[in-house]
Structure formats: C-alpha cells, structure tokens
C-alpha cells in the first residue's frame, strides 16, 4: 500500500510522518484488530486489543531493533490475540513472532523431499509431535539420499519448503515449537 500514497514512498524508501499517519488512518478504517507493518526498517504496530503505547510506535527510527525491543513487554500479545479476535480476516498472514520456534535447516545444498516415496504420506505435518531423531525430510545430492532429523523435540509449527525443490545450505525446512 505504500506504492500508491505519493511521491515520498517510492523507491527512495524514506518513510515519513505523513506515510505513518495515512497508514494509521487506513488501518483505522479497516476491519483489522491488529496489524504490524514493516517498511524499510520502520515498524508500525497498531492494535485495538492490546495495551501497547500506540503513539510511541510511529517513531521513524531507522534502527530496526527499536521496535522489536518492545516485544518482551505485554505488547507481545497481538500475534497470539489476532486469531481469536478476528474471524473474517484470519487469512491475513500476520508476521507472527516465530522467535520461539526452532528452525530445522538444510545441512547442505540438495533437493528436498518431505515424504519417503512419491505416494507415501509425508514424514511430518503441521501439528505432529517430533523427537530430536525424527526424520523430517530427505535431501538428495546426486542420487544420494541424506536424512534430515528434527534435532529438537516438539511440535511441527510450519513446513517451509516445497516438495522436490532445491534448497541451499542453511535453508529453513520447517519450524518446530520446542517441547
């Protein structure tokens, strides 16, 4: 939405006070209960449900860490509150706080497979419980298969790769909510 609100927001990436005001106005007129927008290092969080100090948020500080610093406070609630509070707009991919999740990454470049055979059920699905040694994916490197284990016990929160796609070393395969 920053694209259509005037000359200040184009490729210069400078977020100014007018942008923030317009953003807030638009969000106010929308059906969102909570929203968090990040534009080039400036994070704006607007919420009807939580207690954050809304006026403080728009500070166009270029240093990104400023906004996340508020997270440990009660303001961390929005992500959790959102699904419960709003039905109709639940599809909005709120940039949920995934910092508590453990990433399972590719140990090397390869082709990622999420099931042991094309017609088999996947190794794991969202919601499944895994142990550290549970195989969650297979990486193929020149016809050699390497099992990838979860490395952590917990519940699968997200599967982040497409079956049969190339993944690079370090690519996030899935995220696990540690037990």
């Amino acid at each position, binding site marked *: 939405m920053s694209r259509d609100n005037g000359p200040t927001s184009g490729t210069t990436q400078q977020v100014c006070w007018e942008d923030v005001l317009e953003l807030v106005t638009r969000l106010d007129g929308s059906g969102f209960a909570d929203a968090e927008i990040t534009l080039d290092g400036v994070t704006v969080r607007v919420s009807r449900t939580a207690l954050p100090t809304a006026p403080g948020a728009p500070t166009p500080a270029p240093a990104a860490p400023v906004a996340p610093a508020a997270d440990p406070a009660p303001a961390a609630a929005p992500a959790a509150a959102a699904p419960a509070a709003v039905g109709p707009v639940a599809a909005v991919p709120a940039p949920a706080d995934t910092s508590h999740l453990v990433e399972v990454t590719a*140990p*090397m*470049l*390869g*082709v990622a497979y999420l099931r042991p055979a094309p017609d088999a059920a996947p190794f794991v699905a969202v919601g499944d419980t895994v142990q550290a040694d549970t195989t969650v994916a297979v990486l*193929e*490197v*020149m016809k*050699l298969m390497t099992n990838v284990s979860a490395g952590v016990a917990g519940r699968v929160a997200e599967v982040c790769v497409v079956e049969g796609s*190339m993944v*690079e*070393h*370090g690519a996030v395969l899935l995220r696990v909510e540690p037990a």
Partner: protein
Amino acid sequence: MTRVLVANRGEIAVRVVRACRRLGFEVVVAVSAADRDSLAARLADRAVCIGPADPGRSYLRPELLAQAAVSVGADVVHPGYGFCSEKPELGELLAEEGIAFAGPRPETLRAVGDKSSARREAIAADVPVSPAEDVADLAAAHAAADRIGYPALLKAVHGGGGRGIHLVREPADLDRTFDLAAAEARAGFGDGALYLERYYADARHVEVQVFGDGEGGVLVAGDRDCSVQRRHQKVLEEAPAPGLSPATRALLHDSAARLARHLRYTGAGTVEFLVDDSAGADPATVVFLEVNGRIQVEHPVTEELFGIDLVAAQLLLAAGLPTGLPESLPEPHGHVVECRVTAEDAWVGFRPSPGRITAVVWPAGPGIRVDTHTTDGYLFPPFYDSLLGKLVVRAHDRTAALDAMAAALGNARVDGIATTLDFLDWLVAQPDVRRGGVTTQWLDRVWPEVAGARTAVGAA
C-alpha cells in the same frame, strides 16, 4: 544462453565471473556459508550456498557442486584451481548429467594425477624425466645410486601426494632408510616397491602453458619462471623465463607440446619442469616435474604477455564454441611479473592473518592488472587459502617490469590485516631477483636471515 556454474571461491571465482560477463554468459557462483556476500557472489547473476564454511563440507565435495550445477540448470562448470579442479569425480558426475566441465577429461586427470603415472605418460611422450631405477633391495639401491648419483630420492612406486619420499645424500643414508622406506610404503600404499630418482637440489622451476583442443591440437602459450618459492609455494612468477637459451626454450616447449598431444589434452594446462643450467650445457638439463590439469594461479602472466584470455577460452571450449585463441602465437614482446599478495605476516613465519580489511587500495595505470576478491570492509575468512590478490605488471623489458612492480607494490595498501606487501617490496629489490634465474631453494635460504635480523633489531 549459456549458463556457467563457478565451483570455486576467492579471486579465481571473481576472475571466472568476469570472463562470463565478457562472453555474455549467465553465471551462478556456488558459495559456502562464509562466502555468501563475496565479491564473486555479488557480481554473479546468482549465488547458491552449497554447504558450511568448512571446505570439506562445501568446496571439496564434487557431488554438492554437481548437484548445484544440475539444480541451477548450468551448461558448463568452471572449477577454478585447487578444491575439485583436478578431481576426476566432478567431471564424471557432470558428464552423466550432460553438463560440460571446463577442464581436462577425467581419464586425463587420472593419468597425470599422481607423479608416477604422470612420469610414465611423460616417458611415453618422449619427454625428459629425471634418471630413476626400480630398486628391489638394498644392494640394488646402492648399484642404482652409483649410476644415478647423489643426492637422490628414494620413493614408493605406488606413493603419491608427496608422501613416502626419503632424501639420500650419501650411501650411508641408503643403509639407514631403505628398510624404513619399504615398510612405510607397505603400510601407506599397500606395496613396499621402491625406486630411486635423481634429486635436483638446486634447479629452477620453469613451466609451459598449453591449451589443447581435446583432439590432439595444442597451442603452446610460452613459459613462466616460478622459481621464487617459499616452502614450495610460488611467490613471484614471470614470463618469459629469463635467461633461457633458444635451445633450452625449444626443448621445454616441444616437450610440453608432445605430452599435451599424447594426452589429447583438453583446455588449459601446465607442464612443469625443473631446469638445471648450472653445468653450462646447452640446452640446459630439463626434467619433467608434473602436469597441472587446471587453470593456474599465475595464468595472468601468460594472458598479459600474449594478450589472450585463457579463462574465456576454457569456457568457450567447454560450451562447444570457438575458443578465440589463435592457431599459434607470435614471439612475445616485453615482460610480465606477478606477485602473490597473501594475508600473512612474513616477519613471523608467514603467520596467517585473517580478519577485517578496513580499506584496500590497489595501484592502477598502464600495464597494471590486479586480480582480487577483496574490497573495503571485507572479512578475510580464516577457512581458506591466504591469497588475497595478484598484482600483475607488464613492461617493455624485465628491468622495467620489476621497476614497475616495485612502484606498484609501493602504491598498494591493505589496512586492517597483515599482508605480504612489505615482504614483496623487499623481494623485488633483491639483486638476485633483479639478475634473474634464482633457483627454488633461494628464498628459503635467504629469507630466514633477513626476518631474523629484523626481529632481533625489534627485540633489542
């Protein structure tokens, strides 16, 4: 559109990316986690991270490089030097996938990959090799040594990689080491067979650049002298090799061409020789050393001398296109010198000095070329080779080239880490280097005293 995967890092990855740009090829660089932001990665169309910083789990793994090539849809893989460049497995994996390898055929790499096999090929191609004899027992060893002369090297027939080699300076050394060498050979290589080879203690290292079309056609692109070495690592290279008689030069070039034709060599390669001109014979004694089946670090010396692009030629040949090289090259004019600048502290035993390069300034001007992957703010990683740049200077003759190199070194600056720039300043000012024709032992003989003297002064 031809797409190239660069299976290497550092300055040579940048060099290959630039060649791709010159040719209008798309280029993808395979990087380790430590090189995600490297200059090569930034200059390329794309970078793919194949593994962690540890080269044993990234750049040294042919199957990861081949998989990356398959996954990005590469037509050609350029292996650079070192890492997998001379591993036949990479070419084999790629061939199965219909991807071209910008290097020799796998069987060529096998044939020249270990010294004893390379020596057999050299003999078959009528290339001069050092006198050697198989020695079945101690008595045979003494008899052979009497014919070959001392000093000699006692080697395992099935050895390789510089292991299982004993220097014998006199008959008593043979008595002392023969049984030990045989036992080592049995333990290390599964066969106790030994041979004795003449050792040239103080000779020059001269190599010949060749480029083969894979069908027996070979272009000889002159010679290089790489005798200034520190513990077998080349420090300064130049072309043409100074002070060679026409007969010696012809012997070197013809031998290299014969061997490359015999191998039906594909692409860029180097045939290395020892040249011993101490006896004053003409031609001088020329002895085959080894074949390097890859582009070499010092290839810019030859490129600048002849005005050719060897890396582009490798890529074009692999892509099935005309290489852009002429059928033969004219007699070169002028002289080219290269200095390898490394991230090491020469004054404390060439201790590696990785770290953050705060600022880097290279000289520029007529006849100056710098091949480097360093930039302001570059974090020189501790995981790999210490080469940070190659300074190449061309001038109308050797003296002018060394003068120009001295000036160029003086105008280079790398802040934040220790480099060998000041050591190179010292090197190019040495009367022995100025005179030309030093042997491979020269630097190791001279330098410790210089470094020790300065350390002593500093400590006083």
